């Protein structure tokens, strides 16, 4: 009986000891995990990071810091995607990391919104659907002003394979784009665009209503001016003359010349119009910039370059140039209805720099619209940009105005994106927005080596066959020596 009791007591003690140490172990385990989590939560609050990349991909420069420090208004950067779904090797992860630097400033807020699950938010952000936002875009917002940034705004890319549409990013423009956008939406002084009227032109209240809304959302101030009986106000930066149905008066041309001499910009857009008016006054103004409107109507014969069923609704090709560079990659089609050619005059003027922006196919026919104008076959420019280095004046001449006309955008909404991108980029260039920023693009570091094929194969062969074999041989020797021990 006594022995039985003793056994029972020992088992009881053992059980209680197991229970005690078992419970203790669980408590210690949980406590240590809690301590671990606490330590790491505290560490995550300390945002100490060193950017080790040769390009400084995750750093912001002095100009950005200065702009962010001096911000007086609150700017919010919305990333239109779920940032938790962005893998580390995704290009956007670089932008997310860079934006953490922006977020550290008092007046900058960075938020990520999944557009697929926040439809109402998206509708509030862009009720009229004029910003052209899509998933994976960023929108920089300050009060009523908004600017959309897309992938091509962040990365310099080139098509690595035209068959597979493979694209390789070769540099980052993220800091330039983000800082420019923040500066743009938050600034007090805005570029003023005046639509000329008095010749039945397209203006912000007639045929260019939608495009004017896009201008406003992109930070431009919009107005109208009758050049004949009004003087050009000092705050005007760009005058848009869109599809006048009659020629300008000499007084208007004089005002335009004075306006340009002061270093401002003019954007002339003209469809082909069957009229007896040859716009000689307007042509005389353009002549000073070595460009002329062609007296023709463009008819395309290359099926890839016109709208099915209408050879006058053409798809001119974007020409790679400084002006077009920001939009060149991933550019969609731009449809130019009833366009005319733009001629570049061969008059020597070292002060003028002319960049063609749009070109037709080689199979184009330019149909003369006057009896004395002969038809011409071959590629033709549809838009050009001119810079006068003496005055810094800029002229943009487009042989198409209808590409942004309200009715065209409604009927052919699939070409809205290309047209908007082209038009806004032109205005940004005229305004010189990016030139205000001296933030350089960060080209991705390429660690190139100088090695011949023979050297590469010799070294590579040694590394693949020689080195592992040597190590395994050492292991074999050790094994053979010690196998009997």
């Amino acid at each position, binding site marked *: 009986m006594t022995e039985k009791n003793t056994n029972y007591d020992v088992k009881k003690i053992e059980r209680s000891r197991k229970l005690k140490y078992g419970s203790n172990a669980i408590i210690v*385990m949980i406590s240590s995990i809690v301590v*671990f989590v606490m330590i790491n939560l505290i560490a995550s609050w*300390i945002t100490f990071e*060193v950017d080790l990349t040769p390009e400084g991909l995750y750093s912001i420069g002095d100009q950005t810091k200065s702009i962010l420090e001096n911000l007086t208004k609150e700017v919010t950067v919305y990333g239109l995607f779920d940032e*938790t779904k962005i893998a580390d090797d995704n290009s956007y992860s670089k932008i997310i990391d860079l934006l953490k630097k922006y977020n550290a400033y008092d007046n900058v807020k960075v938020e990520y919104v999944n557009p697929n699950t926040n439809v109402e938010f998206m509708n509030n952000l862009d009720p009229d659907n004029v910003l052209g936002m899509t998933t994976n875009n960023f929108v920089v917002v300050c009060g009523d002003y908004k600017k959309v940034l897309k992938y091509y705004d962040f990365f310099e890319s080139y098509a690595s394979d035209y068959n597979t549409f493979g694209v390789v990013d070769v540099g980052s423009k993220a800091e330039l784009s983000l800082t420019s956008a923040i500066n743009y939406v938050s600034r007090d002084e805005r570029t003023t665009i005046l639509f000329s009227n008095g010749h039945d032109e397209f203006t912000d209240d007639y045929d260019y209503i939608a495009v004017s809304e896009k201008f406003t959302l992109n930070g431009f101030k919009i107005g109208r001016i009758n050049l004949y009986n009004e003087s050009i106000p000092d705050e005007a930066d760009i005058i848009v003359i869109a599809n006048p149905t009659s020629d300008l008066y000499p007084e208007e041309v004089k005002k335009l010349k004075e306006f340009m001499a002061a270093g401002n910009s003019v954007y002339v857009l003209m469809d082909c119009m069957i009229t007896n008016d040859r716009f000689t006054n307007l042509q005389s103004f353009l002549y000073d910039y070595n460009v002329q409107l062609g007296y023709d109507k463009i008819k395309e014969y290359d099926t890839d370059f016109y709208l099915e069923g209408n050879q006058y609704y053409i798809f001119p090709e974007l020409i790679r140039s400084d002006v077009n560079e920001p939009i060149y990659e991933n550019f969609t089609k731009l449809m130019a209805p009833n366009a005319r050619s733009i001629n570049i005059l061969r008059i020597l003027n070292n002060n003028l720099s002319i960049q063609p922006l749009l070109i037709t196919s080689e199979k184009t026919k330019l149909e003369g619209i006057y009896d004395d104008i002969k038809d011409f076959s071959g590629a033709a420019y549809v838009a050009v940009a001119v810079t006068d280095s003496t005055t810094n004046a800029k002229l943009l001449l487009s042989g198409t105005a209808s590409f942004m006309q309200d009715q065209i955008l409604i009927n052919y909404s699939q070409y809205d994106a290309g047209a908007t991108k082209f038009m806004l980029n032109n205005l940004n260039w005229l305004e010189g927005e990016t030139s205000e920023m001296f933030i350089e693009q960060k080209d991705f570091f390429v660690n190139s080596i100088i090695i011949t094929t023979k050297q590469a194969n010799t070294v590579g062969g040694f590394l693949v066959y020689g080195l592992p074999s040597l190590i395994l041989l050492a*292991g074999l020797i050790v*094994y053979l020596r010690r196998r009997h021990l």
Partner: protein
Amino acid sequence: MWTVAKREIGSYFKSPIAYVLIGLFILLISIFFWPRLQGSRGDFISILGDMGFFLIFIVPILTMKILAEDRKNGTEVLLMTSPTSLFKIVLGKFIAAYTVFLVITIISLIYPIIIVIFSGAFTIQLAGGYLGFLLLGGAFISIGVLASASTENQIIAAIISFVALLVMWVADTLSASVGGVVGTVLTWISLISRYQVFTKGILGFAEVIYLISFTAIILFLTVRLIERRRWTQG
């Protein structure tokens, strides 16, 4: 602690296991490195990223015997009753496995050296990547040590640590597809996502602390696991 470490290091290099693991690891890196040489590209940082993945296969074999063998041979009792504290014993064994890992890392420096010989650059980003690799190696080995302490069967220990490391890897991949709170948590716990911060060129305080504290906590839990066994099994 150092006595235990020295003895374990000796046992690694007196058997073919360390040589086989090092040889295999170097072979894998070389296979990835050769095409870069042929393309005159010296971007070793991307291979360094892949090296983290190779560790998933190397570490379980490296650590499988480290504590399981003692338990199977019955020498665990001797260790537990020795004057050296259990923590020092576990740490000594960790240091031994880590030394083999260090040898692998040092040999892998041959690739950046080749890049420099052929006019490439050894960037500070690569140095940061190597720091991350060293910290990741520590964390992985600590998981292997814990797995080895949990069983007396070496194969089972290797499988446990392999699965644990694979889960860590999948957690990172999964986080991007799951998203939301779950995705954030998965990213937060993932050793790989922490390591990738180094390889993409950021030296982050939070990442350094995470990897070090992770290693420490796992080693601590290993000690507790053995201690618990001592008391519960008698």
